[in-house]
């Protein structure tokens, strides 16, 4: 089966080609390759996690404690390659001028926070994994390539970010739901592509909350056989419809309470434990 390039370069569809920049930068610095490990820092890590660090890492702050990885890049771009098994919950925080490539396998939850920028990260994730992604910052390019049963949810806000997610599903199930909250000056893109093979099931969803800015939701699906369980995708405006509002009011919510409750529930649904990192003023939610 040939590899199909889903995005157009026809003049009416401007697509991101910033990955070229990343590839060039990576080639220049020469450190995004997956090369041999100089030393593994297993002594700092719980037994089920081990990470390769690239020899010439230029990371300013790099801490690993329990199930948490925090990376902050300051001068120039810092490259890091991580590889490991997920069991339980793993929190990965990327801040500032960082490029992280990662390979994760296992069962569990990955909480992924990407802040600041410029930022180019590429993750290969395989297994029975929940991903919860929070993206906020400038010039963030995040790419996931996943296989297996993946439940990926998240929120993008504040800045300029582009999330590409290629989900390969066969005899399993994938689900994504991502909320883009755009305000004046923001440019947010969410691009999942589900490649559905035999026995697969997929549902991709982009939710748009627009308060200005430019917001692009492009869920695409490639179904390679009719022998799949289900394939659907949708893009929706997050708007409290009159009917939804009446429903909640007839169950005791005032209009303001209804808005706040829905936003709260949705953020809980999309971010889980990362929910508290999102501070939305009442003004940014209501119309």
């Amino acid at each position, binding site marked *: 089966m*040939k590899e199909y390039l889903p*995005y*157009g*370069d*026809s003049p*009416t569809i401007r697509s991101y080609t910033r990955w070229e920049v990343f590839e060039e930068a990576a080639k220049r610095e020469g450190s995004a390759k997956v090369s041999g490990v100089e030393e593994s820092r297993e002594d700092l890590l719980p037994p089920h996690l081990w990470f390769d660090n690239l020899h010439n890492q230029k990371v300013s702050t790099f801490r690993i404690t329990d199930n948490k990885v925090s990376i902050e890049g300051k001068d120039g771009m810092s490259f890091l390659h991580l590889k490991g098994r997920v069991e339980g919950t793993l929190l990965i925080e990327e801040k500032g001028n960082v490029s992280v490539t990662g390979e994760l396998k296992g069962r569990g939850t990955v909480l992924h926070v990407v802040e600041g920028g410029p930022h180019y990260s590429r993750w290969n994730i395989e297994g029975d994994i929940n991903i919860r992604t929070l993206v906020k910052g400038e010039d963030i390019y995040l790419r996931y390539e996943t296989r297996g049963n993946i439940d990926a949810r998240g929120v993008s806000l504040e800045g300029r970010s582009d999330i590409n997610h290629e989900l390969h599903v066969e005899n399993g199930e994938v689900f994504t739901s991502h909320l883009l909250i755009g305000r004046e000056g923001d440019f947010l893109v969410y691009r999942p592509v589900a490649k559905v093979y035999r026995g697969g099931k997929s549902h991709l969803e982009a939710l748009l909350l627009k308060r200005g800015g*430019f917001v692009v939701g492009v*869920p695409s699906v*490639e*179904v390679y056989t009719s022998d799949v369980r289900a394939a659907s995708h949708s893009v929706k405006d997050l708007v409290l419809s009159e009917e939804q509002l009446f429903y909640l009011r007839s169950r005791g919510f005032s209009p303001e309470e209804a808005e706040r409750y829905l936003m709260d529930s949705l953020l809980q649904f999309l971010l889980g434990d990362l929910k508290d990192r999102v501070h939305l003023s009442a003004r940014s939610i209501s119309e």
Partner: protein
Amino acid sequence: MRTVGKVERSLVEEISRKKGEPEWMRQLRLQSLELFEKMRDPVWIKGIDEVDLDKLVLYEDVEVRADKWEELPDEIRRFYEELNLPEMEKKFLAGLSTSFDSEIVYSRAKEMLEERGVIMLPMEEAVRRYPEMVRKYFGRVFPPATHKYAALHYALWSGGVFVYVPKNVKIEFPVEAFFLISSEMFAQFEHSLIVVDEGASIHFIEGCSSPQFRKFSFHDGVVEAYVHKNAHLKFTTVQNWSRDIINFNNKRAIVEENGSVEWVEGAFGSKASFVYPSVTLQKNARARVTNFSISHQGEWKESGSKVFHLGEGSRSTVISKTISTGDGVSVYRGLLRINKGAKHAFSAISCDSLLMDEESKTFTYPHNQIEEETARVSYEATTSFLTEEQMFYMNSRGLDEDAAKAMIALGFLSDVVAELPPEYSAVFRKVLEYDFRGSVG
């Protein structure tokens, strides 16, 4: 996709000279040729590997491929025999004859249109007789610089129809261009321009669901439509060309304040088809795009729509229904763009694809770019499958596999069929049945 071969400048000049065109049209052709040479091949086109201009572009006037009824491919001949049409209609539909006349209904329709001031002419004639009017719109709705093959089209265009509906003239019956304009509709690079003036309305039908034969195997046509304030245009195309044709069809409408346009696009035939009827909407303008296609074994059919909301209160609805059989591929490629300032614009897009066989495939690439925060968008896509359960249900009610598939396909397309005029939906049914009985895979 690669383009090989060359189109000589002298050839383009010759075309223009032969048609007796005004200078501005000649210049447009030459500039478009230059554009074509400069522009890149579209890299996102899969489904065809190569377009060899030397082989595929025909410069002689359109002729028919077969001279005798017996020379037609079996499946086309058999189909018409089954349909039981009058001899002349059969020959015409099958592409054996380039003209069709003397059916009383159709000449009366022609008279009626003339009485009401509707201009309907072959495009070349319109360029000669109404140069100012044509010049106002030609190449403005769908500019040659849009993509490489639009540029090629403008260099080589020939045939097509020009329609002008005067202010406030409302034509109640669907106008079937196919019968009224005959040979002009069969060209490889045909260019049609429909202008509906303020308050007027017309439903224009192009094509026919019965299988058709064409001399060319590469088609690159353009339909431009300009709908003035408060006017309405419905443009229906049903294409069932023979299975070796590559079809690029470029359609776009600009709709002014309070106007509305409906594109109904059906693709049964051809080997590879890339058609995305498009609309640009001004204030309070409305658009409805209904797409359906069937992709059989070895085929690649792309459909979709590009909708640009510029004006406030603009509304669009896009419905796409595709069926894949054998290892056919159905692709939905759509763009929805809502510009800042298009306050309270609304768009609802729904795509459904039905996969009949194990190797059938469908790819969906929607692209939503929303810049206006008061705009409301909903987009939904689902994929359905022919399940063993459904087949068993049909079998246990006496339908064999092909009849069952036809029934299920018809059900799947039922709201699309509702958009077609009644005589079309009857033929449509028959075509679907025939399709499944005759198809491989």
